């Protein structure tokens, strides 16, 4: 449970370092951002955010999720005063944001915007150095820091001299993240940052963010309309409902197991029982499997898994009488592979496999055995009995 580990760590920092500024703590949790009865009513009378009470813990990724017009982006933008609330108070590190001059406040809070919003007329390096330069760093120091960040977000140093238009969408968004991190702000606001890139790139960026967060330990507020993204990234997820109401604020497993109302239940989706498996890690028995290599002569009795020289799965062989030579064109393509990640991966491997046997692989991608769907269901039942599945 990453959330639990974070709590302990944050508690440790608090005890050792002592409170910095006015720090509100409850049971060792440091609240970095706090919304107190915050309402935003726009000039045309629409209520974007309605009496929002919410505290964001230090060192966590908190996701604001909901359909369009639910007030999630407005709430985010009130943190750095891109929008000011109609009533209520927002505290960042114990300080009322309305008492801080907006540019000064914003230079201390990282911001990643949709489609990156890079400055097209500045090179990648200069884009990243924006906030340090605004804060009065000298040019050389800002450049050095920018080059460092380029590496941190996984981009080659030769990207530094390019203009944003010469980068792909995913690369641009990495630069967007680097730019937000440049002045090393403790808080990062991310406004639907990955919504404009294709699914494969989006997954890369999400994994990269989780990797970065494990290293940097920032307090991140992430806005998205995509519930999958919210459940994947969020240690805490705030589900917003149309009209600016906070419907539920909970850990992903709690959201899936016990939605607060019908809106949350339908927003989380019909397959929430299946999704719960994403958060469960239990031992599933791994059975041995008959394997064969291409060109080998075998007698096919039942399903045989064909592997390459490195023992990596290539496909299945079945329904052949007598002795045959294993031939590439006879292969039936396999399903997803289970790498020990979560019960969801195990079940999906079994369900998607033509042989109903989910192929288990190690870190190198080599076959170690197979899992059966029944075993996954049993592991789930055991986990439930042990109280590991949230009710």
């Amino acid at each position: 449970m990453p959330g639990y580990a974070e709590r302990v760590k944050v508690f440790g920092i608090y005890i050792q370092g002592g409170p910095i500024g006015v720090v509100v703590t409850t049971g060792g949790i440091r609240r970095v951002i706090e919304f107190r009865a915050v309402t935003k009513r726009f000039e045309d009378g629409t209520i974007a955010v309605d009496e929002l009470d919410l505290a964001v813990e230090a060192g966590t990724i908190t996701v604001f999720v909901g359909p369009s017009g639910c007030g999630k982006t407005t709430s985010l933008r009130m943190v750095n005063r891109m929008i000011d609330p109609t009533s209520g108070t927002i505290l960042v590190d114990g300080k009322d944001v309305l008492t801080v001059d907006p540019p000064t406040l914003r230079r201390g809070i990282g911001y990643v915007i949709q489609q990156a919003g890079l400055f097209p007329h500045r090179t990648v390096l200069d884009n990243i150095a924006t906030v340090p330069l605004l804060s009065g760093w000298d040019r050389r120091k800002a450049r050095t820091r920018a080059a460092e960040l380029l590496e941190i977000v996984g981009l080659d140093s030769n990207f530094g001299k390019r203009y944003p238009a010469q980068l792909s969408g995913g690369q641009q968004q990495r630069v967007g993240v680097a730019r937000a991190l440049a002045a090393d702000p403790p808080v990062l606001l991310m406004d639907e940052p990955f919504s404009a890139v294709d699914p494969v790139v989006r997954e890369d960026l999400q994994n990269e963010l989780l990797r970065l967060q494990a290293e940097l330990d920032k307090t991140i507020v992430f806005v998205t309309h995509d519930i999958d993204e919210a459940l994947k990234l969020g240690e805490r997820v705030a589900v917003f409902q149309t009209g600016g109401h906070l419907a539920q604020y909970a850990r992903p497993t709690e959201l899936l197991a016990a939605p607060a109302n019908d809106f949350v239940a339908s927003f989380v989706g019909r397959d929430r029982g299946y999704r719960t498996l994403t958060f469960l890690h239990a031992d599933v028995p791994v059975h041995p499997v008959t394997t064969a290599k291409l060109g080998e002569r075998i007698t096919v009795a039942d399903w045989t898994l064909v592997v390459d020289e490195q023992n990596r799965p290539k496909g299945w062989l079945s329904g052949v009488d007598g002795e045959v030579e294993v031939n590439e064109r006879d292969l039936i393509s396999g399903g997803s592979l289970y790498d020990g990640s979560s019960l969801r991966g195990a079940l999906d491997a079994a369900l998607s496999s033509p042989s109903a046997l989910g192929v288990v692989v190690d870190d190198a991608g080599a076959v170690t055995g197979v899992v059966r769907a029944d075993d996954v269901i049993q592991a789930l039942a055991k986990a439930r009995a042990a109280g590991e599945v949230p009710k």
Partner: protein
Amino acid sequence: MTWIFENWERFWEVTGVHLRLSVVPVLIGFLLAIPFGWWASRSQRARAVLFPFANVLFTIPSIALIVITPVLIGVKILDEINVIVPLTVYTVALMIRSVADALSAVPGNVIAAANAMGFRPLRRFLTVDFPLALPVTIAGLRVATVSNISMVSVGALVGLGGYGQLFTEGYQTDHTEKVLAGLIGTVVLAVLADGLLLLIGRLLTPWARAGR
């Protein structure tokens, strides 16, 4: 052409006058158009007032404006201001729209990002909005410059017109070569000025051609 070589000094002198009378209004007009264009890019109401007003200014015939200016501002008839003021008015009328369009075309998420990074308004305008508006602005500036170079000649009516002087003199003395010299001068000047602005634009906005 022979007239130009035989009267090189005279030709060079009117070229200088022509250049001054057309470039100075472009510079002043452009500077004046920036705040108005900025205002129009931010406010629908400003747009609704400024754009029709600019259009009306532009429809006043240049002859009328140049003849009437000395009366309005009361300076000596031969003062260069009498040509500079009306041409500045045309430049402003033309450039308000260019500057407004150029600033409006700066992507919203780039501006939002700049605000979120903590830019203050003036710095944002000078280092983000304005540089990004340059390609469209320079295109407008090229039109204004070329149109000014052609319009300066009308100033010959009040005795000041660069190459326009050659037109009136040539016409009065039935001296076709002189008229032709003025014409060639005007065209060459316009092409050179346009090319120079194009070059300046390219040097200032290397990013605009950086595509994949």
